[in-house]
């Protein structure tokens, strides 16, 4: 991308591209996550299981599909950003997104007891370990 810059315009355009790239990679530390994998998920530990919270602003409950199998969790869906034909853009940082992400968990999930809720653009999923995967206490003789 940086190759031989034969004139100043190329240098400026390369600088512009470089800054845009760095902005998306959290170099300036301005946003909550870099634009890498989507949606960004935070994993929290809670008693016998995990709580997953994903940032999905602007996505409606019905546009998300959640699937669970053994120790895999799949979150997929899409978000459209549309301002109509008559709009002219001054700034565009939010993007249309179609996502499909499979997460591997450290234990198999108890299918009966999964709870998921969506509030204010945050999807929270509470998962419990399957009975067979719960740690067993070992007595030391």
């Amino acid at each position, binding site marked *: 991308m940086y190759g031989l810059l034969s004139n100043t315009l190329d240098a400026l355009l390369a600088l512009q591209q470089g800054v845009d790239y760095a902005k998306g990679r959290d170099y300036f530390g301005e946003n909550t996550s870099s634009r890498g994998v989507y949606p960004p998920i*935070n994993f929290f530990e809670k008693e016998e299981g995990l709580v997953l919270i994903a940032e999905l602003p602007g996505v409606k409950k019905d546009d998300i599909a959640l699937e669970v199998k053994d120790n895999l969790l799949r979150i997929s869906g899409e978000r459209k950003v549309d301002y109509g034909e008559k709009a002219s853009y001054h700034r565009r940082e939010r993007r249309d997104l179609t996502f499909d992400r499979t997460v591997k968990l450290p234990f198999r999930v108890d299918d009966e007891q999964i709870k998921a809720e969506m509030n204010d653009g945050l999807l929270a999923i509470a998962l419990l370990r399957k009975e067979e995967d719960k740690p067993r206490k070992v007595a030391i003789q």
Partner: protein
Amino acid sequence: MSTESKELHSTEEKGLTKQETQEERTSAVRTFSPYTDITENEESLIITMDMPGVKKENVDVRLEKNVLEIEGVMDFSRYENLKPVYTEYQVGNYVRRFTISNTIDQENIAASLDDGVLTLTLSKVPEAQPKKIPIN
């Protein structure tokens, strides 16, 4: 993210375009700049910001001397008692400032918050709306 990691952090708004002012402030919680789209149609300017985790009552939109300041305060209660194991996004408040011009009707700003997305509709002053000039 645990609420115990509050820190004094100076937030600096980098002057990215002529529409943002540069100012330094300190706050007790980490603040971030929300992704924003600014679009314009005939009657108004629409600002859309991604603020996941912020409830309607916790958004503060303020207009002072042509500077529009938007602050969304995060509800940390949902993260209480949770121990982070692996994190991909950070948690904090959202702040962003814009300088708006005289073509905006300052009395007429509408705001709504749905699913973590704040939409501000700034109506243009009637004189600023494009007028078609008929040719005789």
